[in-house]
Every structure is written in structure tokens, then in C-alpha cells.
């Protein structure tokens, strides 16, 4: 990375601008990842609540959402047995306790991943600020250079 601003070259400014754009794109990707992780976390927490809720009030009627705001009344036949999506388009039958355990493990992993993404985002933000600061100083210096008369022309 370019580290000095004295005797600024327009190509240097251009490359700094490119770095800044690149970091911006990366930052957007990481922000999207963070949003997805948060979505997954909220979903897993809601699923744990639902498993507990169904177990506590077994036999009660639940509303089965079929989309478009339409629901059907349903009864859970076996609240102790749930079907769990384990990824790679595979669903397995497990006890509700095992499913909660699985979801809790996933939550721990998602939280650890979120922490890493936040750290990366902070680093990116710091680097972006650094580049933006250098760019601003560089542009100012470049403008001053442009405004200054060329010494050779003056003496000749």
C-alpha cells in the first residue's frame, strides 16, 4: 500500500481510490454476512422457544401457516419428536431435547462467527478511514502542486 503523500502523483491518488472502493465492497459483503448470521440467530432462538412452548402446552391447537397470511388449525401429534434440518437438504427425526441441543450448538457457532465478522468489519473501517484521510491530504497537496508555478519556467 502507498504510504507517503509528499510529491503526490495522480496515479497514487487513483490507486488509493481503488483501494478504498475495494474495501467498501468488502465491507458491504461482510455487513450482509453479519445480517444473515443475525437472521439465523433470531430464527434458531424462535425455534427453541417454539419447541419449549409446544412441549408445555401439548394437545393445544396451533396455527399452521400456509403462506399468504392463511393458517390452518392443527394439532401436534408427537410434540416430543421433531424433524430437524441438518443442512445439505437432509432432514432427520430427533427428540425435542436433541433438537434444542443442536440449535444451541448452532447458536454458539453463529455468535462466534458474528464476533469474527464484526472484528473484520472494524479493521476494514479503520483501514478505510486511513485511506480516506490519505486521499484527502493527497488531493489537497495535488491541488497545491497544480496551483504552484513550475520553478524551471520561472528561472528560464
Amino acid at each position, binding site marked *: 500500500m502507498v504510504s507517503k503523500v509528499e510529491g503526490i502523483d495522480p496515479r497514487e491518488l*487513483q490507486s488509493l481510490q481503488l483501494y478504498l472502493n475495494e474495501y467498501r465492497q468488502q465491507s458491504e459483503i461482510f455487513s450482509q454476512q453479519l445480517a444473515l448470521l443475525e437472521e439465523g440467530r433470531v430464527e434458531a432462538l424462535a425455534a427453541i422457544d417454539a419447541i419449549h412452548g409446544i412441549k408445555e402446552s401439548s394437545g393445544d391447537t396451533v396455527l399452521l401457516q400456509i403462506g399468504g397470511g392463511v393458517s390452518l388449525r392443527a394439532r401436534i401429534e408427537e410434540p416430543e419428536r421433531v424433524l430437524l434440518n*441438518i*443442512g*445439505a*437438504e437432509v*432432514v*432427520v427425526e*430427533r427428540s425435542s431435547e436433541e433438537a434444542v441441543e*443442536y440449535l444451541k450448538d448452532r447458536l454458539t457457532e453463529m455468535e462466534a462467527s458474528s464476533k469474527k465478522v464484526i472484528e473484520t468489519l472494524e479493521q476494514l473501517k479503520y483501514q478505510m478511514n486511513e485511506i480516506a484521510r490519505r486521499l484527502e491530504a493527497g488531493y489537497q497537496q495535488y491541488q497545491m502542486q497544480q496551483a504552484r508555478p513550475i520553478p524551471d519556467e520561472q528561472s528560464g
Partner: protein
Amino acid sequence: MSSISPKVQNQIAQLQQMQQQMQTIGAQKNQYEMAVREARRATEELKDVPDENAVFMSVGSVMMQKKKEDVLAKLNDKIETLEIRIKSLEKQETMLQGKFEQLQAQIKQALEGKSSPGAA
């Protein structure tokens, strides 16, 4: 930028194009690597499931009940296929990286040659 020769400008454009290609390949490789991780994880999870438990697998738009060992075999096939694709992408990546570095060195040389005081 206007002081850069059309040849170097063209090389810079090629370099940017290569960079985009490498990003696309990288993104695809990431996607496949994630799919492999997911399939491996599902395999591990499935191994812990008692044989009598129901196992479903997505077939088109429906989930079909399958034997645990059949699902395990399908997952292993999937992992194998994805790993072959990853290797092929890695080869493409290495080839592009080599070309990229070569072109980058050419551009650097052209620019340095132009801006060096001795050149004037």
C-alpha cells in the same frame, strides 16, 4: 492517467478484467467449499442418529423418506463431486494468478520506466 500510453492503459484494463475473473472464481470456490462443509457436517450429524429414526432428503420440491445409509452415500457422492469442482477451480485460479502477476510486473515496469528520472 492521460500520460499513460494506450498500450499500458489496455494492459491495466486487462488486469482489471483478470481481477474480476479471479473474484468470480474465488466466490464460486467459496460457495462449493461451504457446500462441502455443510455436507460433511450433515454426514457427521447423521452418523449420530439412531437407525430407526426417520431421515428425509430433498428430491426436487418434496422431502422423501430414505434409508439412513442411502442418504449417507448420497452425501459422500456430493462431497466427492464438489471436491473435484473445487480442485478444477483452484487450477484456474493458479493459472490466472500467474498471468496476473506477469501482467502486473509488465505494467509496473512500463510505469516505472516512464517516471524514472533517468528516462527523461
